[in-house]
């Protein structure tokens, strides 16, 4: 293009990058980035400062001095496009994209495309003064917002917010039911719209007193009467209902959370009640514990990475090794008895021991060596050793399995001598024990030793007798 301005290849590069960027945006959901390309995304924080400075400079010069040097505009546009594309690559690593990234991405892309349009208008000598001026104004505004959102992504959403002192901490081991549980749920889900600054429906939900006072539709809670509490009624309405809370578009409360609200109100909506004050058969206890339990998948996040090829090698005719779910590194292993048992079926699991969460060894003739490997699976939550020939000696290798939730040991030879190891399993909730010397011990002594465990000692013999004696009726009585 004329007047000794930028050479032609510059405009071609800019055109190419623009088309590329638009393509990326259109086909976003189909794109899978190779590692090297994804890595280019890491350049985003490095290059992003160029377009901010250069484009702002170009736009301001254009607004106040009219003539923008072509070179400046070319470099500014180029850097904006590169920034947008690397930003796209970086964003592709995040799934799902939150609101922040969504807006940052689209405004950033907008900046780059607008800059390209401006460049194109300018090198083609289109005398569109107003168009160019408005592009410059819009660019300045967009750059501001894009930068702001970008900053919030890296520094946190409340980075620029005025200092506040409330921050959601962890739930303590013995929580206050109102402050640590109920208020926490309200804080996350409700108080955003029912606070002194934004008093939707004239309702404040910041404290028990405010809940009792209520809003336009009367008190939010009525002590001891969950069914008559507006709060519960609103939570329980069908999702489609206008009056359902939280309103459409916001995440509804989970069943667990709603039930916690109901029981807490039923128990009198106290602010001094603690978890350990509750009776053992009070359902609220389990509800709260369920809420405090870490999400299953979260627990497994820190596991070492297992390659798909490793899994492939481990799988065989009699051994199935699978990921528990999707991209999780937690493994489930089942071994089925082959015609000729080979301890290597278990010994070769050694390199993935810390990934195994479920292990099924039912019916195998296990020896001490194999049990040593099992004992190394410290993340095990589910272990099936039923119908194996293990005794206390083999079982003694399993002292470190403190994450165990379910243990199937029926039809084995473990005795009372294994009880100390069982006691160590703090999280154990189900223990299948029938047909073992251990299950012969007195009910009360087992219960004392393992108070939180549901011990299955087989089908009630009385029930078997009923089943053996009584047949279903054949004729309907006249």
């Amino acid at each position, binding site marked *: 293009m004329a007047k000794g301005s930028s050479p032609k290849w510059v405009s071609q590069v800019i055109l190419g990058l623009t088309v590329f960027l638009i393509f990326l945006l259109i086909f976003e959901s189909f794109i899978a980035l190779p590692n090297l390309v994804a890595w280019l995304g890491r350049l985003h924080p490095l290059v992003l400062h160029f377009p901010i400075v250069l484009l702002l400079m170009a736009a301001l010069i254009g607004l106040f001095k009219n003539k923008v040097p072509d070179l400046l505009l070319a470099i500014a546009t180029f850097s904006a496009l590169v920034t947008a594309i690397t930003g796209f690559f970086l964003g592709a690593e995040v799934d799902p994209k939150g609101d922040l990234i969504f807006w940052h991405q689209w405004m950033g892309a907008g900046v780059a495309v607008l800059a390209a349009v401006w460049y194109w208008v300018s090198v083609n000598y289109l005398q569109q003064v107003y168009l160019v001026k408005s592009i410059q104004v819009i660019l300045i505004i967009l750059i501001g917002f894009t930068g702001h959102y970008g900053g919030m992504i890296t520094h946190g959403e409340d980075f620029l917010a005025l200092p506040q002192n409330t921050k959601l901490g962890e739930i303590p081991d013995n929580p206050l039911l109102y402050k640590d549980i109920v208020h926490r749920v309200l804080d996350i889900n409700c108080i955003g719209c029912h606070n002194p600054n934004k008093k939707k429906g004239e309702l404040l939900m910041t404290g028990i007193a405010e809940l009792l006072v209520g809003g336009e539709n009367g008190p939010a809670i009525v002590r001891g009467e969950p069914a008559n509490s507006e709060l519960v009624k609103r939570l329980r309405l069908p999702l489609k209902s206008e009056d359902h809370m939280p309103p459409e578009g916001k995440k509804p409360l989970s069943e667990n959370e709603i039930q916690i609200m109901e029981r807490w109100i039923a128990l009198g909506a106290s602010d001094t009640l603690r978890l350990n004050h509750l009776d053992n058969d009070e359902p609220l206890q389990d509800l709260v514990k369920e809420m405090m339990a870490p999400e299953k998948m979260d627990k497994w996040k820190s596991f070492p990475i297992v390659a798909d090829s490793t899994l492939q090698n481990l*799988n065989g005719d009699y051994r*199935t090794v699978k990921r528990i779910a999707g991209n999780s590194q937690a493994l489930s292993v089942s071994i089925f008895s082959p015609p000729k048992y080979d301890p290597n079926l278990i010994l070769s699991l050694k390199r993935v021991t810390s990934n195994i969460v479920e292990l099924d060894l039912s019916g195998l003739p296990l020896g001490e060596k194999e049990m040593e490997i099992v004992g190394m699976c410290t993340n095990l939550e589910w272990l099936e050793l039923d119908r194996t020939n293990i005794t206390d000696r083999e079982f003694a290798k399993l002292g470190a399995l403190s994450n165990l939730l379910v243990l199937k040991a029926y039809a084995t030879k473990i005795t009372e001598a294994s009880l100390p190891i069982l006691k160590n399993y703090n999280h154990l909730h189900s223990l299948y024990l029938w047909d073992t010397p251990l299950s012969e011990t007195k009910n009360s002594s087992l219960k004392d030793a393992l108070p939180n465990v549901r011990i299955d000692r087989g089908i009630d013999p009385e029930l078997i007798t009923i089943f053996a004696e009584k047949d279903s*009726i054949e004729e*309907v009585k006249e």
Partner: protein
Amino acid sequence: MEKDKDKDSPENPLKVNRRHFFSQLSVGIGSLALGSLLIPDLFKGQAGQLASQPLGIPHFAPKAKRVIYLFQAGGPSQLESFDYKPMLAKRMGEDLPDSIRNGQRLTGMTSGQSKFPLMPSAVDFKQYGKSGAWISDLFPHIGKIADDICIVRGMHTEAINHDPAITFFQTGNQQSGRPSMGSWLSYGLGSENQNLPSFVVLTSRGKGNSQGLYSKLWSSGFLDSKHQGVLLRSGNNPVLYLNDPDGISRSDKRHLLDHVSSLNKIHHVETGDDEIESRIAQYEMAYRMQMSVPDVMDIKKEPESIIQLYGEDSQVPGTYAANCLQARRLAESGVRFIQLYHQGWDQHGNLPNEMAGQAKDVDKASAALVLDLKQRGMLEDTLVIWGGEFGRTNYCQGNFDPKTYGRDHHPRAFSIWMAGGGIKPGITYGETDEFGYNIIKNPVHINDFHATIMHNMGLDHEQLIYKYQGRRFRLTDVAGNVVKDILT
């Protein structure tokens, strides 16, 4: 840039000549091509799976690893089993009010009746367990496990006749041709034990009025045929032609298979037909099944107490009780989907007697299966389902006689129960009106039922997709919501 080289000028800024156009175009297309490198399989036009989730692995941590589906083929009456309607006794013989029927269609078998007299249950009901579930006297043993099961009273379907109704339940569609539920799960989750099929079918037949069962119900439809259900027969030969013929040793068989397989592989390279690979895999599976199947099917190893629990019938091959015991053994051996069918529940007439016979076949064994799974800790990860393809009308079909009455098909409300595998135990979900005709609370459609089962197996029913004949297919097609209320 020199003016003569590039013909566009400040005077004609928009005048683009051909050379310019192509040069610009090439840049644009080049960028597009560059971008398309980032999309794997863009031009492959693959016919198979296109879900973003990897196949063979649950989408999220599952509650259930396997399903035992005790299908009661023919449509057992909910009014004599799990939906207690004492009001019918008070209004016995009265015509079904139009306000209740609401002009809904009836089958050809009763639409000609001039009257629709209400008929109460010939058997009494009792409350069982802590939950106080109402269960009829025909099912006393299921009553004993009331606190382990979840009775769903609000099931409904659109199909009004056996074949479409059972096809709907099994494949998510009333017309045949779609993959069966077991095939979908095998496709989505893969096999747990390489020595057994992941989808096994067992059938039995009661003395009651029966409808046909066809292999299309366990067909893999358009999915790879290795996901098809394998029908195991009763008796000495659970799978036909599985055993080696006389004079052929196991090593001969191995040689034979290796050679056949190498020939098949050559053929596969030539034609690219994926069914050949399926065939190779099936030969291998059959070879391994020669060892595993007889072992799994050998119920003689079961102790006396188990036989007492399932009942004497469990020793008679081909009975429902024997199949239930078999189902437990198959589940233990890592079969993912075990489908039982018990025929004979189509009581258009003589319902009280026929249904008592049917109930006798299944009541004890179904309850025993749940108890047995429970003591083995398998109820924690095995989903048991008991139910038919639809329910039966609250009015009498045929002679109005409390001893020999019949009931017609009723798709608008019927009961099934589920147990284990992430389903809340000891609850009754959903409610019908006083007549037992329409659902008034918490309806569950077949699509919802499927979505819920898939959810418990760790699959998002909207994500498990197969593209075939130009469109995407799911078990739940375009509907289905997970019934969250009945999940643990």
